[in-house]
């Protein structure tokens, strides 16, 4: 009974520790379209990059279009896979995740700018 009690206390303490670190390590994702590419940036609030973390890109029907990894500067770019609302999901090693929706209108607008610059 005593060991069950100790395990319970330990679980609570460990969970509490994780909860605190989750808030402090919240990750942010941002994406924009430029010159035929989608450019993504993943960062902590203080500007430190979210490095070597998994990136998944979905269309508006939640179909997985592609996967990748952020580099040491928290960046990951890819050619525009589809002219649609794109959901960019980043998941870092401790499990913290966040997502960003790049609107179809922004992708369309970037293509118009690209044409205008040619």
């Amino acid at each position, binding site marked *: 009974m005593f060991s069950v009690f100790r395990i319970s206390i330990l679980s609570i303490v460990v969970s509490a520790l994780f909860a605190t670190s989750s808030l402090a390590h*919240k990750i*942010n994702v*941002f994406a*924009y379209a430029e010159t035929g590419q989608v450019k993504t*940036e993943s*960062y902590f*609030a*203080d*500007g430190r990059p979210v490095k070597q973390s998994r990136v998944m890109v979905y269309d508006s029907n939640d179909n997985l279009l592609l996967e990748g990894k952020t580099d040491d500067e928290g960046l990951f770019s890819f050619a525009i896979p589809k002219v649609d609302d794109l959901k960019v999901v980043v998941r870092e090693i401790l499990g913290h995740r966040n997502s*960003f*929706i790049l609107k179809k209108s922004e992708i369309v607008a970037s293509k118009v700018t690209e044409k205008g610059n040619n």
Partner: protein
Amino acid sequence: MKKTFLAVFILLLYAPFACAHFAAVIPSDDIVTKDESRNIQLDVKFVHPLEMHYMEMARPAQFGVLHRGKKTDLLGTLKQSQGKAPDQEGGFMTWTTDYKIKRPGDYTFYVEPAPYWEPAEDLFIIHYTKVCVNALGLQAGWDGPIGLETEIIPLTRPYGLWSGNMFSGQVLLKGKPAPYVEIEVEYLNESTGNPAIVKAPSDPYVTQVVKSDANGVFHYAMPRAGWWGFSALSEADRTIKKGGIEKHIEIGAVYWVRTVDMK
């Protein structure tokens, strides 16, 4: 001798009633999140913040934004507008612009107004004014200097503040800390969401005063939700000629922050 004494006496009479002038740059949103519109509006004006009176603001000499170390000139985007207090007649010139946030980070908007002639004090006033808008979760850049003749560098992150929080800043004059200068502090009664107009029980409550320390640093705890202006005043080492006479210039380093009630 008698004439001099009378002139000084009259000037002293004016001093307590010279209400505090504040140039202001107020954004429609100071924390832009990914789920909100990224188009913000900025209002640029010259006011008595607590008493809500407006004064004419001519087209500024400089208006821009600092983001991720890069300054962008926005003077050409300013559109003329007007504002007034409920008890004022006629509108007073103000300026407004729309700005689209494109990337994460801190955006420090700044204005250098044209010199304002204040006859009651027989001098010109130039208030170099700054405000910070945080965008898309990246909290970096809020403490970067613009390089103005005088400016306040925030030592408290200037957004995400609760009423009751302390705001600390360092006053710079020509890039160097300005010790023992007076900073006037005033609440903007026009703040969106202000539930009731604050009435000062007596004059000292309209504009409060703190002084910077030997390192140019000051602190102030903000007791109410809304916009707070901090104006650190110095005298310029140059003059402007008016009517053939060289007139002094009061230069102000002004910073605006917003507080929210903790619920």
